[in-house]
């Protein structure tokens, strides 16, 4: 019951954050919290808007600079960036996600890695086609 409530509130916050970010992205430059409040309909309290902006700032989704006695805000990440942050939190927070989300690849042990490199080298030497536009396809080490 309380869990349900908390979930609903959290979703509400996510939507508000998205709304505020959308407003910021439509702005021509750095804007004040008051401007954001007007832009999203003015139904929210000024302090709520500032809270949301601060939360976005803590997530590094927006940047701010001081202008007089208050801050002006600019978006740092768009909705996709926010989604990436949220997804990373899910992936970090769920040790058992392997049972649910089928990952493309699973972790390698050092032995696996040696074996894998040998297999790929073998495949490449037989296979002279190589990737058509594989210039950026270095795998790093």
């Amino acid at each position, binding site marked *: 019951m309380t869990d349900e409530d908390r979930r609903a509130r959290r979703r509400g916050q996510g939507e508000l954050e*998205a709304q505020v970010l959308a407003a910021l992205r439509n702005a021509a430059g750095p804007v004040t919290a008051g401007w954001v409040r007007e832009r999203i309909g003015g139904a929210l309290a000024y302090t709520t808007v500032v809270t949301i902006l601060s939360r976005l700032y803590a997530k590094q989704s927006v940047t701010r600079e001081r202008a007089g006695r208050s801050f002006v805000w600019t978006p740092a990440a768009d909705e996709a960036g926010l989604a990436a942050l949220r997804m990373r939190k899910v992936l970090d927070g769920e040790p058992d996600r392997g049972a649910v989300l089928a990952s493309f*690849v699973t972790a390698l042990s050092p032995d696996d890695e040696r074996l894998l490199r040998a297999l790929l080298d073998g495949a490449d030497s037989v296979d002279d086609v190589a990737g058509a536009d594989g210039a950026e396809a270095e795998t790093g080490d």
Partner: protein
Amino acid sequence: MGVFVFLPLVLPLTAWPIARLAEQQLHPRAATWLLATVGGVLALCSTLCLMLLMVVGTAQLPGNPLPDAWADPEVRAVLPYDEVVGQAAIPLLAAVAGACAHLVWLHRRVRTRATRALAGLPEGRLAVLPDDERAYAYALPGGRGTAGARGRIVVSRAMLESLDARERQALIAHEEAHLTARHHRFLLVAGLAARANPFLRPLRTAVAYTAERWADEDAARAVGDRRTVARAIGKAALVSRAATGRGAATALVGFATAGPVPRRVAALLGPVPPAPALPPAWTAAGLALWTAAGGTAVSALASANATVTLFTVLRAATVL
């Protein structure tokens, strides 16, 4: 019912030979279906027998809500070691129920949280997340009540940038295969079975592997080149390891020890797996298959027998 009521609790052991051999000898699709089905049936039988034992055990507890006649010596006579086993079955069954409920809860939570993480993005099958540090790709199954009922493919930019155009195609085709064939259901069944009876754990690892192989083979058919899929898997595994910088320490639970990635790559570089067909009985695969089938059948019969016996005895006892 006698000692036969214990059979379904240990018969899952007959699934062990098939778990290893099915990975290597059968077509991945057939192997996944076979292992998930065998695991599910064996787990159901094992749980059913646990429930029967629990009924007999509970009837002997003072103050239980069951009819008093159910604790009569005649009823207790049908079950060997009724005091010990009957009482032990109660906490065991509770543990099984708890573990299964926990898995279902986890399953729901991961799906809900991941779906919500994507909430702000435009609709579409493929969601590319601008994460340049972490290379990952997931098939996120859709469900009733969630956006994108057919599921979504989640890929990070770091993953896409490590692959060339054809390898990306292979990656997408692989995840698409997971969603189309609803592999998460096989994984859930195998996971529940492993929790219902610990002897079924090797089956879960095997199903996780064969489901990946199934998606690999589908991707190879979609892309038209097995080598491309093999290279995509290899590169993705190496770049994920490099990006997290923590290597095998970040292993997904239960997957790492078997070294599934090199085996998948090797399988793709090898010949096309045989079309789904029954292997001849005299080969190792055939023998394992018949052992598993026999074990499953005996398990089903034993638990059915135990159910009928207990039902008959209890009805007789209640009438008396």
